[in-house]
């Protein structure tokens, strides 16, 4: 089976930046994810939102990559949130306690509302 491509694009929105993630978040995603996160940090003092609506697979290495982004956000005292996770990955964010340290929202509207409210 071919390893699916991973893509990440940055969008500027009121309250912060959105990373639109697509494909599989595994070890192959690291370079692209880190570069997109660095782009989202530029000229942005607000929140960073991870959009998982088009992510269909996250493995344990992918969880580690998200932990790394969360550590960067915390070091910079920046809010990092997630939205668009499937029910299964919401459960994984709960049992790993990622959801204790980052907002997990059902959709972009609710995530952006929280980011704008600060």
């Amino acid at each position, binding site marked *: *089976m*071919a*390893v*699916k491509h991973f893509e990440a694009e940055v969008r500027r929105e009121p309250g912060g930046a959105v990373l639109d993630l697509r494909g*599989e978040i*595994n*070890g*192959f995603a690291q370079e692209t994810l880190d570069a997109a996160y660095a782009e989202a940090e530029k000229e942005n003092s607000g929140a960073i939102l991870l959009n998982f609506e088009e992510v269909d*697979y996250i*493995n*344990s*290495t992918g*969880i*580690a*990559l998200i*932990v*790394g982004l*969360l*550590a960067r956000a*915390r070091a910079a005292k920046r809010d990092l949130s997630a939205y668009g996770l*499937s*029910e*299964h990955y919401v*459960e*994984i964010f709960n*049992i*790993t*306690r*990622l959801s*204790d*340290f980052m907002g997990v929202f059902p959709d972009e509207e609710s995530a952006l509302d929280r980011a704008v409210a600060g």
Partner: protein
Amino acid sequence: MSVSRNESHRMLAELSVPSAPGNERRAMEEVAGTVESLGLPDRTLERLKTAVAEATMNAMEHGNRYREEAPVFIEVSATDAELSVKITDEGTGPAAFDPQTPDLEAKLDGAQTPRGWGLFLIKSMVDEMNVTGDERHHTVELILHLNGRKEASDGRKAL
């Protein structure tokens, strides 16, 4: 719930995947297809898929060191009471899992590596996990108790 392990298992599938990065998804999808007839609830199936993927990835990476000529073997079998998925690699000695329980706060503070979630995810996703090994193989067995799942899917008992 106590489940008798004496009942003989009926084999549902014997699969193998080459040890190459990304092939854990192939294993996951093939096992999901194999157990389709059992009618597992969606949530249970997703949990099984994650456990199979993580155990297969561990077998490919640590057991077979991503040597494509060393396949990971997967046996799927069931009784009326339980579903068993055995994942076997060609590693020697104890199966290599990070023994440290992941602590997210420690990881965020840099006191633990960000990695090391595989075993934790597997244990969280299935009812039982057994690890066995000898001089030539490691086997990780994942077990789901089926009776409780049927009750849950009928809405009579929440697990």
